[in-house]
């Protein structure tokens, strides 16, 4: 049961520990700002966000037949940000991605930080930033910007996913990047079409909800820069990296990033031992102690359960 | 069927003493898209009255009902149980007014039937035993005992309708507001509903297209059309007035 572009939901195991942890760190940093910002809003905003999260979750099921059994889907980050504002949109997407990972195993747990970053945070930031450019302008321009944002958001997700896979030593950049970008350039069109027509629908039926002054979406003009920066990042890095992945590889190598990322995933623990233990002999001793502890705890439980069994009998 | 006993001390004392339990003055309402759904509605209901609200499709019946516990907010004064309807009073008013929506899907939001019916009592702070007994009682009243563990959203329409009614009965409200409770019920369930409503002691406002039920149950009838109250009086008189009925999309039974 896949609700949204499957190739962006990374399962556990595909990213190295270090890449997973760095992604989590970035995600947590951004999310903690998001939580702070939204907490200030009206208290009714929280249930609304919950319902909008359910809306995005459900909307991802709506598809349209394209050709040969394939179909177009919605990812929804841009739509969420336009309807609710960037911070709230990010939280909504986080909830959606979290529940998909936890409940449906659509995306892993340890790598969830990366998934949230790729599909939730970047998409919301781009979408809202571009849409904000159209403030006070004609409806068609707004729709166009939203559509562009939708396409770019999918591309941004594909780009960062590819980079993470590569840094984890899971994929070769020269193959995975063009492949991912190529596929998502098409998927992005579906995202654009659905986002634009959904927005057009809302403009027709409840324009009050999209009013920048009265509607639920709040966000300053600073977002325009964020949106522009991420768009540039995608627009410049994608063709560059696709045509010359070696260059990117060299840069990463120079920064010492690649060596870390590609190394055995255990590298966060120096010398392949637990950091607080010394040489091999200690490891053996430690293993012995741990083994003894395990046995002790097991015995404790067995005795306990025998006791309760007796009590119940 | 045992009558519902109101043992809980939730009643604001004023309610029992006074007679006017719902008082609406010059209420008007337009939907956000500009459509005017209610125009200058005035209405007063006494404790214990049982009233049918009838009128053609689109008359504004549901819209009016949604005002009675503050879900929609129009212009005009509303007093429920002597309390003016405002933000502070809402929680109390909501414990007084049990509202069943026209579409049962709007009413049911919990995974299982049990949880849905228990939601109200649980949030009122009743203890577990009391909650369970209220759920059993409410389910028995709508003839759905044994459905506790079924998923609410996987029931037939008629079954959902009955559970929707149970979710409100479990709260022992003072005023029952039912929006077309009999639509979609099979004949036996419809009969059961009529008997149930006959037995329940509380004040009732019930919208319906079922004029036979209106005649059987409700001494007073209010006819709405195009957002206004066009008649309000004794059922026996109004529902025999063919000209009036004909004019407002209704038919003499």
């Amino acid at each position: 049961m896949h609700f949204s572009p499957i190739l962006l939901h990374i399962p556990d195991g595909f990213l190295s520990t270090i890449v997973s942890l760095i992604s989590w760190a970035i995600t947590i940093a951004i999310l903690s700002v998001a939580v702070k910002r939204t907490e200030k809003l009206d208290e009714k905003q929280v249930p609304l966000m919950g319902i909008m999260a359910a809306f995005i979750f459900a909307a991802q099921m709506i598809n349209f037949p394209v050709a040969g059994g394939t179909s177009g889907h919605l990812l929804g980050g841009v739509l969420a940000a336009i309807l609710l504002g960037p911070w709230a949109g990010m939280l909504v997407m986080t909830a959606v991605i979290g529940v998909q990972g936890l409940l449906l195993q659509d995306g892993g747990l340890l790598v969830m930080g990366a998934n949230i970053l790729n599909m939730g945070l970047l998409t919301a930031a781009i979408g809202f930033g571009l849409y904000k450019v159209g403030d006070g302008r004609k409806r068609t321009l707004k729709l166009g910007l939203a559509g562009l944002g939708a396409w770019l958001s999918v591309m941004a997700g594909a780009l960062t996913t590819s980079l993470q896979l590569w840094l984890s030593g899971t994929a070769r950049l020269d193959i995975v990047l063009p492949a991912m970008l190529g596929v998502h350039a098409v998927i992005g069109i579906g995202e654009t079409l659905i986002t634009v027509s959904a927005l057009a629908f809302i403009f027709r039926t409840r324009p009050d909800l999209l009013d920048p002054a009265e509607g639920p979406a709040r966000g300053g003009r600073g977002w325009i820069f964020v949106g522009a920066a991420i768009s540039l990042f995608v627009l410049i890095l994608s063709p560059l990296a696709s045509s010359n992945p070696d260059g990117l590889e060299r840069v990463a190598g120079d920064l010492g990033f690649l060596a870390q990322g590609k190394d055995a995933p255990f590298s966060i623990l120096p010398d392949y031992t637990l950091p607080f233990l010394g040489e091999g002999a200690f490891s053996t001793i430690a293993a012995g102690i741990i083994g003894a502890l395990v046995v002790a705890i097991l015995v404790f439980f067995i005795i306990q359960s025998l006791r309760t069994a007796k009590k119940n009998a | 069927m045992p009558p519902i006993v109101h043992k809980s001390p939730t009643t604001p004392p004023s309610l029992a003493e006074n007679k006017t339990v719902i008082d609406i003055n010059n209420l008007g309402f337009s939907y956000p898209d500009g459509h005017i759904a209610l125009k200058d509605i005035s209405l007063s209901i006494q404790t214990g009255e049982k009233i049918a609200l009838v009128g053609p499709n689109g008359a504004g019946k549901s819209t009016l009902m949604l005002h009675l516990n503050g879900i929609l907010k129009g212009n005009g004064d509303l007093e429920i149980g002597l309390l003016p309807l405002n933000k502070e009073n809402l929680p109390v008013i909501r414990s007084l007014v049990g509202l069943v929506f026209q579409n049962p899907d709007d009413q049911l939001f919990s995974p299982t039937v049990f949880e849905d019916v228990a939601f109200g009592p649980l949030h009122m702070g009743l203890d577990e035993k009391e909650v369970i007994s209220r759920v059993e009682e409410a389910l028995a009243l709508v003839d759905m005992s044994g459905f506790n563990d079924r998923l609410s959203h996987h029931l037939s329409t008629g079954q959902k309708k009955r559970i929707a009614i149970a979710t409100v009965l479990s709260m022992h409200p003072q005023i029952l507001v039912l929006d077309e409770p009999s639509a979609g019920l099979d004949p036996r369930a419809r009969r059961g509903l009529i008997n149930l409503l006959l037995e329940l002691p509380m004040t009732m406002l019930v919208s319906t297209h079922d004029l036979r039920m209106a005649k059987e149950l409700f001494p007073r009838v209010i006819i709405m059309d195009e957002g206004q109250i066009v008649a309000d009086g004794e059922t026996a008189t109004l529902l025999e007035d063919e000209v009036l009925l004909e004019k407002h999309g209704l038919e003499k039974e």
Partner: protein
Amino acid sequence: MHSNIFDRYLHNNSSIHRLAPQVKVVIAILFIFSNALLPDGDWLSFAISWAVILLLNWLARLNLGYTLKRSLIVLPFTLAAITALFSVPGKTLTIWQIGSLELILTDAGLIRFLSIIVRSWLSVQIAILLVATTKFPDLIHALEHLRLPKMLVTVIAFLYRYMSVLTDEVIRLMRARQARSAVLPGRNGGGSLLWRARTAGNMVGQLFLRSYERSDRIYHAMLSRGYSGHLRTLNQHELNINDWLIIALAFLLIAFLQLFAHSIG
């Protein structure tokens, strides 16, 4: 349709089901972390991990077939890892030439690829085990205990509440479209791609509108039934000494496995 899938085994009542949810969450994450730390090609350690998972499955009286079938969800993603076959230097097994691209399959590459798949497959089984033995409301509760921001927890709780309502709504919308998606024999029906996409977009808009307006009504239905900002559940889960011991046990087991894996590695 969803609730069926989500709540499939929750009516079982094993010792695993009864564990405090936050304990299960912590252990699951530790365990997945441990998988990530196992070295490439350490099949023995992978096998031990799997044995532990199977043991837990058995303790929880889960249907193994279901778990395994469900674990296939990671399959499509293996596509993304396929290039690992050609990206690690090692003994050359074969060489494929695709256009200008030369793909050298190495033994190290093969080991890396298989290790990624196995790690992923083990981890997803742990996640399945977690949700199959824990009611989602309890999971949400666990997240709250694990210091997730309150607002995010509430958003997730609402998401869960409305999820089935809205997915059902979607199923109905799609049914309505399906029921009228008729084509006459000999005619080119179905409409243009653009029209189809717009219809889907309209449905998303429709869903938004319904969710938004219904949310108001349901929210009020909840308020009128006494909801005051905090979703109540009947059981609270304070950790007791047993729970701590179980966490300690799990932690030690995992440390043991890691030491084992890395001392033979």
